[in-house]
């Protein structure tokens, strides 16, 4: 397993257990988080200019804010692409606080 795969796994694990919080950005299909001074951005991309979003892009920025790594369309490893997609969904849930909104809705419907 490569270092990037380990990083992806770590991001997924920490987002799943809630120790890594994601934030919204200016684009509704893009989310950001930071681990110390390193940022990670995940984005859902439209395929071939169409609005059907099926592919994802992950970008890692170093402590000076420069992009140092990108995982995106064209990635050879299919597993890595799937992991970025999974991370996007988790990041979106975290940034939009989906669980909290659903809990509020469920509570409102009960009363």
């Amino acid at each position: 397993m490569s270092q990037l795969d380990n990083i992806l796994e770590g991001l997924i694990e920490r987002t799943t257990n809630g120790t890594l919080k994601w934030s919204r950005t200016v684009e509704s299909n893009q989310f950001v988080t930071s681990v110390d001074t390193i940022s990670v951005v995940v984005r859902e991309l439209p395929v071939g200019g169409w609005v059907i979003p099926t592919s994802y892009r992950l970008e890692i920025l170093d402590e000076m804010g420069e992009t140092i790594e990108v995982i995106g369309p064209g990635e050879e490893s299919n597993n890595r692409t799937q992991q970025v997609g999974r991370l996007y969904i988790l990041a979106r849930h975290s940034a939009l606080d989906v669980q909290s909104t659903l809990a509020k809705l469920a509570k409102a419907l009960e009363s």
Partner: protein
Amino acid sequence: MMEFWSATWGDAATVVGILVSLGGLGWAITEARGARSASQAAQTAADETRDQIARHLQTVDLQRAIGLIQLVKTLHDNSQWEAAREHYQTLREMLTGIIVRCPEHQTEFRERLTTARTEIRLMEDFVRERFVAGITEHDRSRLNQNLNNIQSDLEELASAMGFGDSQGETK
């Protein structure tokens, strides 16, 4: 009796000498401890002062960044996108300056500033990509909303530094 004292004088003197030495050693240890705690207290005071100065400088830098965000919002409102883009860069550099001077133990502070800096970078990309086609009212609203979020975050951090008031109102 005299014989006894003559015979044991040396031993008695040795015992007294040991007692005096032990007393002296005890006194020396107490003095050394006092000096060490005084030195430690001076070190702690120096650390606290240095920490306070660092926090004060961080607050000043954060207030400057908040002021700049307010200016960028005005530029957005006046559709001065080129000028706004230049200020995004300045803002990112300011945040980088605060991040690199941040003490090691302030991990959460650093992470929030790093996220804010990346959000600004993404805004910069957003404006650059849409500039030619024209930035819509919806885009402007999203940009200002994002800036408001960053501004609130920086105000919260400045306030948490414990150096009082945050300036720059959130639009």
